[in-house]
């Protein structure tokens, strides 16, 4: 009897909950089905293909191929160019975010517009803009015509690729770092100053630890995003700047070598996922540090 009266009021709520659940499942179906069929399944079939021999048996030799000889050096080039891009876009992003965070709202808004608008212009178009600018008779070489050694070779080498990819990644790092910098509690800096800490000490001991995790995630993110980059390295680089995405593209469109391309795709995927896990670890570290500082 007591049990009955206890469950009675819970019933309509449960009914309501189950109705809300049913509606939720119904509305979630399109996106789930769509992405399972056109995103998850294709990636799994890529994984399968990378493990299949021509006769259908399982093999790892596509991975062995992908990790030896020319393919291995392409992988290293990819890692190197991505690292260079990450460092440069982090440094430039830090300086720019720092400058913007000190501007008056109107100017900060305008500067942010200059950061955000290019991000929505096709990367292909921006790459072409760089090709026009960096050529022998381009804007940069014309401006530097007085310098000894001009015109400089700024295209079809690593310098060109890194200039291009850095400009593509910069909007991400600026936006991320701007958010991190706005989140720093300035009272902590003031407190350190009031206790007699010098500028360098404050920067090193208080400010850097606070923005550090944000810096690390921004750097990692631009590294990950550069890994799969194709357009800029293909158009602005030379033969020594072939990146893994270029290789995948070549194998599919020119050589009909799908298994090899699949293995390289899986390697790229694994590197990306490892990077994302690192980002997650770093940001949870940052969150705990913030809590400790605030207490």
């Amino acid at each position, binding site marked *: 009897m007591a049990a009955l009266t206890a469950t009675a009021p819970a019933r309509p709520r449960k009914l309501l*909950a189950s109705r*809300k*659940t049913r*509606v*939720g*499942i119904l*509305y*979630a179906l*399109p*996106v*789930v089905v*769509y*992405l399972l069929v056109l*995103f998850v*399944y*294709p*990636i799994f*079939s*890529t994984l399968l*293909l990378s493990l299949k021999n021509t006769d259908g048996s399982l093999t790892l030799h596509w991975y062995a191929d992908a990790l030896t000889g020319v393919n291995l050096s392409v992988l290293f080039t990819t890692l190197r160019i991505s690292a260079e891009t990450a460092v440069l876009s982090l440094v*430039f992003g830090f*300086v*720019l975010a*720092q*400058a913007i965070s*000190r501007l008056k709202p109107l100017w900060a808004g305008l*500067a942010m517009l*200059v*950061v955000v*608008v290019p991000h929505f*212009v*096709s*990367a*292909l*178009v921006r790459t*072409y*803009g760089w090709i*026009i*600018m960096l*050529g022998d*008779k*381009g*804007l940069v070489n*014309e401006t530097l015509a007085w310098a000894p050694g001009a015109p400089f070779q700024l295209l079809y080498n690593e310098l060109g690729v890194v200039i291009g990819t850095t400009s593509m990644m910069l909007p991400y790092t600026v936006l991320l770092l701007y958010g991190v910098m706005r989140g720093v509690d*300035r009272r902590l800096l*003031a407190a350190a100053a009031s206790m007699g800490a010098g*500028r360098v000490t*404050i*920067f090193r001991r208080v*400010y850097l630890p606070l923005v550090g995790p944000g810096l690390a995630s921004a750097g990692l993110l631009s590294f990950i995003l550069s*890994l*799969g980059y*194709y*357009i800029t390295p293909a*158009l602005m680089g030379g033969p020594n700047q072939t990146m893994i995405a270029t290789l995948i*593209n070549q194998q*599919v469109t020119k050589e009909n070598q799908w298994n090899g391309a699949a293995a390289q*795709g899986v390697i790229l*995927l694994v590197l*990306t996922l490892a990077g994302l896990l690192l980002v997650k670890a770093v940001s949870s570290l940052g969150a705990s540090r913030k809590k400790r500082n605030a207490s």
Partner: protein
Amino acid sequence: MMELRKTLAGRIALTAVATVILLFLALPIVVILVTSFSNNAFASFPPEAWTLNWYKALFADGSKWPAALSLSALVAALSTVFSLIIGVTAATALTRSELPLRSAVYALVLGPLVIPQIVTALGLFLLFEPAAMLGSPIAIALGHTVLASPIAVLILIATLRGIDERLEDAAASMGAGRLTIARKITFPLAAPGMIAAAIFSFITSFDEFYISQFLSSVDTVTLPVQVYNSLTFEIDPSVTAVSAILIAFAILALGLVALVRWIGSGRQDSLLSVENTVGVASHGGEAV
């Protein structure tokens, strides 16, 4: 950081460096816009004389650009429709219902945004190639929707979260049915977000390169693939004009989103204003 570089020299140095970085971001775009009117379309800056020839050449006989443009527009329109359907339903499920495995669904939606696009493109190629659908605008649009729909979902989640659910509750308490609420309250308030989602889905598809390249055939080439081809294989100076048009298009789309947001922001305030006036009136004596 205010405490760190208060010296005038430091401030000037920081401003100068920041200006250079902003130029670094903006110049490639400005250069294309200027060069598209220059009589020498290849890498000479600033131009010596001005011309509209590159724009005229776009529509000359035998030009590949009109076909590429109309294919891209068709594909983008299709994937905008797909993305909106997926976006509206998914955002409703994620904000207005109790969904089991909610975080798994959310992670699935974010997936295409973090996985390298070339991997997604390769997977789609392996899916559509055996089906003999390479070069089909539908296949390309379905592929683009994988990238565009997560963006639509995220925008619409933010939109639905921004709508005060009390408005819907109030309508329900006055006896409005679910459909009436959706039609009269939720839809008008969500419309700006839906337009923004549509615009971003359209741009995403319109500019998409990797999937288009893997799924295109000789006769069906989207605009970005045609731009890429003319930058690598054939020398076609009108690519500068196409690029300038693409830039103008992106700026126009962003302006449109800003405009719609600005119009939309007034709407909910006007609906909620009754409540605010009541609030003011009850404290009227002291407050005014």
